[in-house]
């Protein structure tokens, strides 16, 4: 089944509560997907720094002196914040490529979850409640975010197989459904230069969107192209540096509910996920139409 949630804030006064609201929505969706959970959260983009979120299965060893080692390798200041199995490394934006290549030498086992000015991704196997607790999601601030509770279908229950998937700067995607042509598309994308971390169908969808953006489409156009090229069942919720989008396949089997008020736009696989949002009783609530792209920007 899988459960997906998303929240795009219009009212700045809610930003300190983004993590708390999203975590609550995520935990409510536990019975749609108890295998793993993940959240992507956007915030603090204007500081001239880029964030690299990394994950390690041996965080004590890998993260112990990672900031110092990276600083020495690139010769620029590096800040690091460790949260359980994840660490967010902040560094000057022009040092991202240098840091990526240094990371692959310094800590070959560490995986990059996301790169971006605003984006951080946290995901792990286990119940959403435990994942939310582990990363202290309820304390996180931000402008918008998306989350996922996974019932694994197309690939193994692993941290890397959890959603959200990020395959481009500040881009991420969560998916409820399954794609039937992901192997063919994966081969095509590999031919075009994409590297894949998993056998997961959703990673292919994320990489497909990144590829279309690379070819010059905007996100709306990329999602429109996806309606022609991605075969299977899907409800996607996507995030960008300042945007939030939703699209369902033309058959639209997978459930989706949206709500909008002056303060926010929210998405849930079920209405239950939205019931604690402020003003939900008077919000405009609707079911997104099949094969229709919905998008909001700050």
């Amino acid at each position, binding site marked *: 089944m899988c459960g997906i949630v998303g929240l795009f804030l219009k009212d700045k006064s809610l930003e300190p509560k983004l993590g708390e609201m999203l975590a609550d929505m995520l935990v409510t969706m536990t019975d749609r997907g108890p295998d793993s959970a993940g959240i992507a959260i956007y915030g603090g983009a204007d500081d001239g720094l880029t964030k690299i979120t990394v994950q390690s299965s041996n965080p004590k060893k890998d993260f112990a002196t990672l900031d110092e080692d990276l600083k020495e390798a690139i010769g620029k200041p590096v800040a690091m914040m460790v949260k359980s199995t994840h660490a967010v490394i902040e560094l000057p934006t022009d040092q991202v490529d240098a840091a990526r290549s240094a990371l692959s030498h310094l800590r070959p086992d560490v995986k990059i979850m996301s790169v971006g000015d605003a984006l951080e991704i946290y995901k792990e196997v286990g119940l959403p409640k435990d994942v939310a607790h582990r990363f202290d999601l309820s304390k996180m601030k931000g402008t918008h975010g998306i989350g996922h509770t996974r019932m694994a279908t197309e690939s193994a229950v692993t941290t890397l197989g959890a959603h959200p998937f990020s395959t481009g700067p500040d881009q991420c995607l969560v998916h409820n459904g399954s794609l039937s042509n992901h192997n063919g598309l994966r081969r095509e994308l590999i031919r075009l230069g994409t590297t894949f971390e998993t056998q997961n169908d959703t990673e292919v969808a994320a990489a497909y969107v990144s590829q279309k953006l690379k070819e010059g489409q905007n996100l709306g156009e990329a999602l429109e192209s996806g309606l022609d090229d991605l075969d299977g069942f899907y409800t996607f919720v996507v995030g960008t540096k300042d945007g939030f989008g939703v699209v369902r396949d033309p058959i639209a089997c997978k*459930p989706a*509910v949206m709500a909008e008020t002056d303060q926010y736009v929210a998405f849930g696989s079920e209405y239950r996920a939205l019931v604690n949002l402020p003003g939900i009783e008077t919000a405009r*609530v609707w079911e997104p139409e099949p094969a229709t792209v919905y998008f909001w920007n700050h």
Partner: protein
Amino acid sequence: MQTFDLAARGLRELNQTLHGVNGNTNQTAWEIINTRGSHAIAVGVDAPIDITVNGTTGYYCAGMNKQATIRVNGSAGPGVAENMMSGAVFVEGDASQYAGATGRGGLLVIKGNASSRCGISMKGIDIVVHGNIGHMSAFMAQSGNLVVLGDAGDALGDSLYEARLFVRGNVKSLGADCIEKEMRPEHLELLEDLLRRGEADAKAKPEEFRRYGSARKLYNFNIDNADAY
């Protein structure tokens, strides 16, 4: 009026309580509060009672209903009134996917819009939707009536059997073997009754509707029709 607080007493107790109500009860009016999008509210009721659900519901509200009149003062999630046998279900807001699916009898009224697959495989239920319905509605519908005051989405009545579909607005496309049919006096009479019982007679007149039904070409397999399946 019996008030049942779902948040305090839980779904299992709600449905067990309603299943315990029989035809001789004096407790004929029930109100359910704190629904918060919960699943399976008032499923399998079999008594001539009135149930008011105050709030929005999740999956399968009022499924398999017999005899009861259930009114949802909010919107309904997927599968509302699925497989209803008799009685009536009124949804004041919108309904999600496959409202009234496989229903064998009774009346389902949706005051807002219904999304995709409304009345899929309906087998005798009457459905009145005041707004629009989504794609693949009345797919393989076998009998009963679907009345839509607004528009219908793609592939209306795909692989339809004997159900009658009445649409006032536009139909985006008709599914395989579904065709427009003439509106005869008996259909106007039927519609008038359905609009009245569906609390829609103030909004629409029978003459404003068009009727759709089965061309009956796909009833029995015929190799000449293979392309249409």
